[in-house]
């Protein structure tokens, strides 16, 4: 088996599972069987991905492509599909497959209240998601990437709307699709333009500077949507209406990271556009700070994590903006582990308590010690506690910004690091410590093994993955845009800030569950609603109004013309009808006249 073959298994095993579940209703309707099928194929995908990584380590990158769509003539188009295995895609395949497997396993426990038919539906969606994500990751060109990009968007829509009987879930699903689809217009136009300029969909294409800036800025629009960057981040908090494992997989670990992955992948293009890179750095840093502030004032545990995801994606994009593709990519992988872990742990809590609100939790450390431990491990990793995985990758990002003298984003990210520790400290304290705030919290208990096992696996990775940075570097440097050597410097400032964040959190929420005055005023200011309202206003006053006008014009102007013409003939006919007396001799008279006229004309013409 060659490396691309393993990668093909990684990509297409989930597709097989999705097809099986979609077509064979008997399997799908038996929820447990569906879960088994889905997890088996996810494991196959994981195995394929691991072998692809090993193959890449030994033999470097390789490809397997086939023609997908071609057209001839004077405008040749030749699109291929297949897998492109290199130091970036292979580890990413493995990360995605690993997290997905964990999440699917977790889901079997999490969703045990659901009817088996709807669980079957869930796992069909999950398999489809995994397939499309792997398709995106392994894409040999930007078009296939876009292909996967859009299907993950659609599966995200399906999974957010999984509990469609909840109106909020149905609405959130549509909202997520709208926002990302709006952003995807950028990617679509960008691709069309890229083809217009180069005749291909390669990320290695060479463009004129202006064209490169235009195309990459269009890509950035899509990235902003998919990776939930300000001001297109509004869908992500709402997406928490989906089941928590979905949030863990799609809206934290993998799908939202697709935007970052796109920028990593298209690094050769972005490198040609310095303006875009600067924009990206400021955008990422701004979002990192902004979302961290918002995370601080949430009362919903999942929303804390959602805003934290926005914030961390901002870190990655800032690093990419600084031109350090590896830092962003590294953080992408570690973030996938610890954020999935945090979400799953949160899911375990929510499963036990039956509510997302932190005000209903509290004191859970006695009831769910394992969950608490892994949650704290994830939080430390996220906050960049020295030695944990996030510490390594985040330091690399902050370093890369200082290297490139982007001081404003640098400062924002440092402040963000402090805030991260602060809000995670708050979340830990409010959730696991203090008194029980509800009846359910009093009777909470640890979940079963199907949920514990993924937690433990991910916790181990969240703690230890940082030490493999050098290996990842080794892999990633197989691509042509990761240069230099991996050097790790202990980021003292960031560490101190992170630690002080936890200390401040302890001071603020250690004894009381009351919000400090500062946080309350922040909440009042930064409540996400105002951005949302702006969009709602734009939708109602913009799109809906225009649509009403268009429909009105269609019915009462364009169509009215038709009706008026029709009526004209109808009325005319009503008059002309009087000519028809019904009397044979009148007709004869007319006939004779006609015959005479014809005869006269034919004789004397």
């Amino acid at each position: 088996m060659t490396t691309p073959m393993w990668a093909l298994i990684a990509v297409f095993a989930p597709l097989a599972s999705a097809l099986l579940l979609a077509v064979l209703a008997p399997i799908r309707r038996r929820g447990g069987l569906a879960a088994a099928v889905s997890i088996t194929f996810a494991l196959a995908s994981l195995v394929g991905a691991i072998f692809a990584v090993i193959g890449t380590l030994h033999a470097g990158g390789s490809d397997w492509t086939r023609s997908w769509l071609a057209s001839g003539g004077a405008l040749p188009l030749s699109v291929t599909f297949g897998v492109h295995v290199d130091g970036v895609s292979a580890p990413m395949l493995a990360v995605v497959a690993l997290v997905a497997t964990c999440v699917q396993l977790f889901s079997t426990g999490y969703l045990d209240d659901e009817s088996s038919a709807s669980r079957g539906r869930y796992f069909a969606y999950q398999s489809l998601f995994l397939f499309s994500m792997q398709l995106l990751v392994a894409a040999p060109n930007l078009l296939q990437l876009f292909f996967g990009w859009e299907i993950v968007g659609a599966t995200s829509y399906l999974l957010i709307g999984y509990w469609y009987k909840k109106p909020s879930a149905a609405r959130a699903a549509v909202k997520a699709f709208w926002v990302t689809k709006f952003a995807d217009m950028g990617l679509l136009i960008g691709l069309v333009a890229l083809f217009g300029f180069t005749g291909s969909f390669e990320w290695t294409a060479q463009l004129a500077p202006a064209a490169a800036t235009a195309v990459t800025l269009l890509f950035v629009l899509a990235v902003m949507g998919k990776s939930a960057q300000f001001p297109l981040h509004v869908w992500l908090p709402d997406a928490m209406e989906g089941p928590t494992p979905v949030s863990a997989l799609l809206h934290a670990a993998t799908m939202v990271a697709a935007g970052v992955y796109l920028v990593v992948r298209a690094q050769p293009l972005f490198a040609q556009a310095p303006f875009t890179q600067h924009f990206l750095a400021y955008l990422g840093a701004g979002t990192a700070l902004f979302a961290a502030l918002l995370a601080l004032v949430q009362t919903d545990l999942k929303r804390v994590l959602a805003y934290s995801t926005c914030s961390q994606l901002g870190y990655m994009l800032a690093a990419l903006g600084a031109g350090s593709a590896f830092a962003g990519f590294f953080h992408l992988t570690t973030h996938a582990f610890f954020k999935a872990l945090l979400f799953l742990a949160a899911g375990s809590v929510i499963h036990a308590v039956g509510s997302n609100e932190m005000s209903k939790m509290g004191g859970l450390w006695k009831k769910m010690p394992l969950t608490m431990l892994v949650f704290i491990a994830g939080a430390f990793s996220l906050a960049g506690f020295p030695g944990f995985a996030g510490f390594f990758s985040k330091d690399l990002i902050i370093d890369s910004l200082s290297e490139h003298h982007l001081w404003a984003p640098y400062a924002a990210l440092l402040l963000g690091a402090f805030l991260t520790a602060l809000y995670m400290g708050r979340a830990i304290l409010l959730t696991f410590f203090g008194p029980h705030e509800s009846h359910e919290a009093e009777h909470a208990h640890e979940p079963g093994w199907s949920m514990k096992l993924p937690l433990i696996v991910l916790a181990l990775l969240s703690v230890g993955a940082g030490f493999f940075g050098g290996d990842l570097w080794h892999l990633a440097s197989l691509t042509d845009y990761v240069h230099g050597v991996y050097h790790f410097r202990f980021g003292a400032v960031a560490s101190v800030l992170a630690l002080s964040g936890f200390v401040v959190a302890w001071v603020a929420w250690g004894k009381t569950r009351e919000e400090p005055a500062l946080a309350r005023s922040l909440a009042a200011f930064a409540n996400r609603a105002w951005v949302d309202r702006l969009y709602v206003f734009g939708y109602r006053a913009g799109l809906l109004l225009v649509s009403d006008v268009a429909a009105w014009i269609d019915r009462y102007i364009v169509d009215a013309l038709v009706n008026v013409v029709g009526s004209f003939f109808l009325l005319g006919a009503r008059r002309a009808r009087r000519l028809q007396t019904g009397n044979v001799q009148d007709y004869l008279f007319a006939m004779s006249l006609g015959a005479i006229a014809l005869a006269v004309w034919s004789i004397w013409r």
Partner: protein
Amino acid sequence: MTFTATMIVFALVGALAFVGSIFTVRSSKLVHAVLWLGVTLGMTAILFVQLGAPFLAGIQLLLYVGGVMTLMIFGVLLTKRDGDSELKTEEPSRERGALIALAVFAVLAGTIWLGRDALQRTAVPSLGTGWLGTSLLTRHLVAFEALSALLLAAMIGAIVIARRRDPDQPSEPKES
């Protein structure tokens, strides 16, 4: 131009035919009109003889004067209404009819007048009844057979149309 006997006969017979036709279309009593039609048809038969078609003249007398006229008289008598009580319809305009008739005549006569040079022909000897019979059964056989089929169809059709409806069956709704 000398007046021969043929010409005189022609003029007389033609005038009679014309007069007959006028009365056919103008006489207020239909029975009279039928009789006048008989006069017209009879005069035409004489003209046929003059034009070398004696067989046709015979047929004309037999078929028309004998058959058709009888039928017509039956028709007139059978449809005699119970007095002219309800004259709810308008009389067709005589002037309009006359105008059209005159116009048609003018056109026809004008055409004939324009083509009078081409019409300067001498009579050819008749080919005879035997020839006519032969040609009917050879050259015009298809048309002849079609005509016979037509006559049969007309006969059946006339019977079907004029047949009195079965009193059991409801007659079709009379609506206007």
